[in-house]
């Protein structure tokens, strides 16, 4: 296969932190090149340098036979290199078609945007790629779900007929059907001889779609261009974390399930879900599987009290808590670790300690508080969680994703709740930290806590949970015992019958 791009001795530092250190790598036509590594390994930085978003401090890039010291977005566009970043770059108030074709010269006639043309072109793309689940081309992007927006972003990159396409964790917001769509798109692009770079956390995807895989660690290459077909998951994890993780999920041991703690009966919010009933017991981990938009997060938010319910009952230790405010529910022993760390979870501009003591401070009905009084407790919790930090006064956004997730958990540990609700606790964090999160959940269960875990990774649910509730279009489709749960069975219950 022909070489399309080669990077040589690329280095890049942000402030004092070295993101990349002398990276040499080549990319070939018609090849899916996966890049893996823990958070902060430099994967996204490498992608952004290739796409001209960041400029390298040292090194050079050779595209076919042209050599550059650095690229910028304009040159990258001329060379037909594009990147679908993790942060969506769509303009919410414009239509799908406008988002895709707005920057193309051919969309304009005498400086006036030809809406008819771009709508037609967009519809043609939808047809070409079999995207029947997207609304019409003139729909505004703000009316799309997050997953649909991601697909639009991808279509936009594809429509530009690029030589090289970089996907930075494209599947984190996608549900299973959309991941399938994306992969069939990638397969088509491969046939058209496009070179694809796929940055990902999900090992399964590498084996499904990848040709070669490169492992990065601390800004350096650990293994370069390993052919995927000669590799197994076990070996790959070993390269990634630099140590052997025999059983990476660490299946939860059977411990005796205690009395019921949280009992939900007939819960409805009138919009996202109806007639939800389930019970979580002491020492039990109850998993929630479902497609994105099935209503899982909404159910949890209702139990936590920040979303209105229209009917049904929520009992905690036998006591009805429907009418309580969130603060009162927290006092009774409910806790909620939301998805979307930066949006709902942390005040990333505030110090770690302020984040950690937020819940505690809110629960204490005192006029005067001194954040120092939480210091001992915070240090203890940080130690328990093996949080990596140099000072509790450093801002939360200076931590890696995995460590931010730990701070988010830390907020609740001080309250010693009896129910923990985790919404996608391992999304976007590296393999090493994931194992730590699993251990933490298992230890909480051992202490007798009742645990709810919402996750889109079925393997993880099957390994960690005692029972798995499958939510399908706002209803409980099935509740599996762990011994009966398999991926195909759960999947079958997740997908709506049309």
């Amino acid at each position, binding site marked *: 296969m022909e070489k399309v791009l080669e990077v040589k001795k690329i280095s890049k530092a942000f402030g004092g932190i070295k993101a990349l250190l002398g990276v040499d790598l080549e990319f070939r036509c018609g090849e899916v090149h996966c890049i893996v590594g823990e958070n902060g390994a430099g994967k996204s930085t490498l992608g952004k340098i290739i796409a001209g978003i960041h400029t390298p401090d040292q090194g050079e890039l050779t595209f076919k036979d042209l050599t550059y010291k650095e690229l910028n977005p304009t040159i990258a566009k001329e060379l037909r290199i594009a990147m679908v970043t993790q942060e969506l770059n769509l303009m919410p108030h414009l239509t799908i078609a406008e988002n895709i074709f707005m920057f193309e010269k051919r969309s304009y006639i005498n400086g006036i945007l030809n809406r008819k043309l771009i709508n037609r072109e967009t519809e043609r793309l939808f047809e070409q790629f079999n995207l029947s689940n997207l609304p019409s081309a003139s729909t505004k992007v703000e009316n799309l779900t997050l997953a649909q927006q991601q697909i639009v972003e991808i279509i936009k990159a594809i429509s530009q007929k690029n030589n090289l396409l970089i996907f930075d964790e494209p599947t984190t917001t996608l549900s299973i059907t959309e991941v399938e769509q994306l992969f069939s798109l990638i397969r088509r692009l491969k046939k058209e001889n496009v070179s694809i770079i796929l940055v990902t956390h999900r090992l399964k995807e590498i084996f499904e779609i990848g040709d070669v895989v490169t492992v990065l660690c601390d800004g350096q290459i650990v293994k370069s261009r390993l052919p995927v077909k000669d590799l197994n998951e076990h070996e790959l994890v070993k390269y990634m974390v630099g140590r052997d993780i025999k059983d990476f999920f660490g299946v939860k041991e059977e411990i005796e399930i205690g009395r019921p703690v949280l009992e939900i009966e007939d819960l409805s919010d009138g919009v996202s879900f109806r007639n939800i009933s389930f019970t979580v017991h002491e020492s039990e981990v109850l998993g929630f599987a479902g497609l994105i938009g099935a209503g899982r997060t909404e159910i949890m938010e209702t139990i936590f009290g920040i979303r209105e319910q229209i009917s049904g009952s929520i009992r905690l230790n036998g006591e009805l808590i429907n009418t309580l405010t969130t603060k009162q529910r927290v006092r009774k022993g409910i806790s909620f670790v939301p998805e979307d760390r930066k*949006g*709902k979870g942390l005040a990333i501009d505030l110090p770690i300690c302020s984040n950690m003591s*937020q819940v505690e401070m809110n629960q204490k009905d005192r006029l005067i508080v001194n954040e120092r009084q939480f210091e001992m407790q915070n240090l203890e919790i940080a130690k328990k969680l093996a949080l990596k930090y140099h000072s509790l*006064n450093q801002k939360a956004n200076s931590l890696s994703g995995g460590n931010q997730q730990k701070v988010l958990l830390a907020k609740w540990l001080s309250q010693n709740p009896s129910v923990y609700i985790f919404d996608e606790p391992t999304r976007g964090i590296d393999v090493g930290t994931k194992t730590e999160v699993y251990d933490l959940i298992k230890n909480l269960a051992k202490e007798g806590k009742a645990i709810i875990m919402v996750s889109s990774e079925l393997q993880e649910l099957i390994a960690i949970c005692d029972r798995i509730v499958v939510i399908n279009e706002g209803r409980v489709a099935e509740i599996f015992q762990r011994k009966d749960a398999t991926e195909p069975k759960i999947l079958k219950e997740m997908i709506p019958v049309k």
Partner: protein
Amino acid sequence: MKNNSQSKKFTEFIRNNSNEIGVGIALIVLFIVFSITSPYFLKTKNLYNILYQISAIGILAIAQTMVLLTGGIDLSIGSTFTLSGWVMCFLVKEVGLAEGLMAGLAIGILCGFINGFLVSVTQLEPFIVTLGTMSIYHGIVYIISNSKAVSNLPVILEKIDNFRVFGIPSYVLVLLIVFLLSYLFLTYTKTGRMIYAIGSNELSARYSGVPVYAYKIVPYIIVGFLAFIAVFIQSAHLMAIDANAGTNLNLDSITAVVIGGTSLQGGRGSLVGTAIGVLLIGVLGNGLNMLGVSSYWQRVVVGVILIFAIASQKIKITSKTKK
């Protein structure tokens, strides 16, 4: 080892307070320049004059800081100032001191409560709400005053203005007390810490179980209260109030706070920064007066400094988040 951790603490202090330090240095430089270029600048009388000039705007800026920290803004601060002040002065003159003060205080707090209620309960944009109430409150002043000033206030106000403790004039004392209490409020009370938390990320506070709406009203009520305090010390000093007393104070209070490093996005900023910002504007205005620069040119200079201050913060933030 100990030295090392101390130097670490020192660099952390510098990093966390770089903005205050930057504006503080600018203030010191200005102070030195004016001391050299104008023989009258350092005279005690002039220094008191500066302190008087910043007393009302300083109190308003402290209040505005709290609103900006929640991610809001209060454009009606000057109108609240005028409305509560005009009613107070009118009643003090016509009815009595106690009645006037009570009415002024009540109106100030009511104005603030209305803003806070609309912002937090109905979740309207603070900019729009207070743009509306700015017009409403000021309109009411025109209606009840018929655009007339209240002057020849009772002598008791002059006595209050001339009151001194250890030689410190009452208006400086009030400013200092307001600053100190506000600082303690923001640093050590639960509400104060929640104001920072909500401004930094409102959603994360909600997902920690914090009743966000209850806390978001508080800073607006404080604005109403402090606007009353500010207008009281100013009218006691001038022995009069006119229907446009607070017109410039809306934006001037925001200017001082922003120069002091408080972010319009909320969550970031401090009262120490605001104090330095207020002093900077006060010293600048006074010094330029001493040098005979026209007040028209002074407005231009303040505008330039504001943009310069914001630009330097922006550069700092982008260089931090570039990753």
